[in-house]
């Protein structure tokens, strides 16, 4: 479904991605793990076309997307829930969700998607009229994911959805990600929470200082001695 081939990227003079190869198949949850500054968010920004790569190709359903504008990538079915939620602070919960269904193909299913999101996150229904900027971190994360779902994504990119959440909510969020995947959405998940994200992943990649150093099945990576030593403290 998504195939990244030898992706290189620099912020001005600082090179942060080196020959990244990464693949996501339809129906999968793929997790990319790595410590802070490894280049996880930068990889997602390249897919969403918020930045332009130095070289390399990104194919989505056979189409080269490094030529597209970011809104066109969304129209193709790739939606990112960015790090730090980035919800619209001066808009209500409902208005935020409405912005999720801005593109033409999502407008038709606006009401039914809204119901779907409210079923997944009943909390958002209660807070429907509250301004996004006044909600707690956990609620904002739910809203950010809900807003992403409003777009009818084929591939959902999630950047550190568990960051800053209480331990109870962290478990919750990973359950919800599994549920979204069960409903037919392919997921590329980027996380520092290595244990949880590899546990729910079909496959995973380990990123270190801008390079893919390991890849494989989620459970195999969890049992890998390097991963256990570097990320799980075992």
């Amino acid at each position, binding site marked *: 479904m998504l195939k990244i081939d030898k992706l290189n990227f620099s912020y001005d003079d600082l090179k942060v991605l080196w020959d990244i190869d990464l693949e996501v198949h339809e129906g999968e949850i793929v997790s990319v793990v790595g410590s802070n500054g490894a280049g996880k968010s930068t990889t997602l920004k390249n897919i969403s076309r918020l930045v332009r790569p130095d070289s390399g190709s990104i194919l989505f359903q056979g189409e080269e997307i490094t030529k597209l504008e970011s*809104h066109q990538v*969304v129209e193709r079915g790739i939606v990112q829930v960015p790090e730090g939620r980035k919800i619209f602070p001066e808009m209500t919960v409902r208005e935020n969700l409405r912005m999720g269904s801005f593109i033409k193909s999502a407008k038709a299913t606006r009401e039914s998607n809204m119901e779907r999101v409210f079923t997944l996150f009943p909390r958002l229904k209660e807070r429907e009229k509250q301004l996004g900027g006044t909600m707690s971190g956990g609620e904002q994360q739910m809203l950010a994911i809900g807003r992403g779902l409003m777009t009818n994504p084929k591939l959902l990119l999630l950047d550190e959805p568990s960051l800053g959440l209480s331990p109870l909510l962290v478990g919750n969020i990973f359950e919800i990600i599994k549920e979204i995947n069960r409903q037919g959405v392919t997921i590329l998940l980027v996380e520092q929470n290595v244990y949880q994200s590899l546990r729910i992943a079909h496959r995973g990649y380990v990123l270190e200082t801008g390079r893919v150093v390991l890849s494989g099945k989620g459970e195999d990576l969890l049992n890998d001695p390097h991963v256990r030593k570097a990320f799980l403290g075992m």
Partner: protein
Amino acid sequence: MIVFFQSLLSGVLIGGVYALIGIGLTIIFGVMRIINFAHGDIMMIGMYLTYNLFAMAGIDPFLSIAITIPIMFVFGALLQKLFINRVLNALPQNQILLTIGLGLIMSNTMMLIYTSDYKILSTSYSSSSVKLFGISISEPLAISFVITAAITALLYWFFLKTDTGQAIRATAQDREAAQLMGINVKRMSIIAFGLGAALAGTAGALISPTYYIFPQIGSIFTLKAFVITVLGGMGSILGATLGGVIIGVAESMGAVYISSGWKDVVVFVLFLLVLLFKPAGLLGKSRM
């Protein structure tokens, strides 16, 4: 007492037009984070457009806004597409230079065509007034206020109820997040600048029956628009509406109770007080 109400009312009426200018500037700032120093000059173009439609085709200035608004929208949209979109990620000083430069080109072009002579657009009702509860109201000011109120209401509806309006607000609140929702932010910027220019141009049209028209009039209004916008909180439409009315009333009261030469001083003292005690603007928020 009648003098008080008289000046309060005419302040509110002219404040409505100021609000239009301020709202235009604040929309542009909100979406692009750019201060449009050509704003008053765009308004000036609207004045000349109105003047010409009146002088050449005999179209009433309040009717000709139906022509002025779309022309000014396209003018603003083109400015954004051709110039401003290219400096969105540039240093602030470069952005300032660009908009100042565009404003200079506009005023000098008009000077070449029309010289710096003052033009007067005088209609049959330019100096007539209507009486209401013993207060006399300038007729052109009253008409322009009604039009202003209608346009402002339409604008609020657009930003709160339509998808495009909401998308413009979303772009102003978080440009990157808007992109991730599939919003074409460059297109939204073009619409936003078009709207800002249309509002400035409309304000120019509305005051043309009561003001002298000359190529340099823009700079006064750029300054005024800036004061209004800062007063209300940069980027807040509600704030700019409020700011416009406050400035209108302050000017009018200043002219009556101090002297007409001092009305600008009153405005700037008010401006400094707000900056001192409420630096984020009266409403204290800076987002659309």
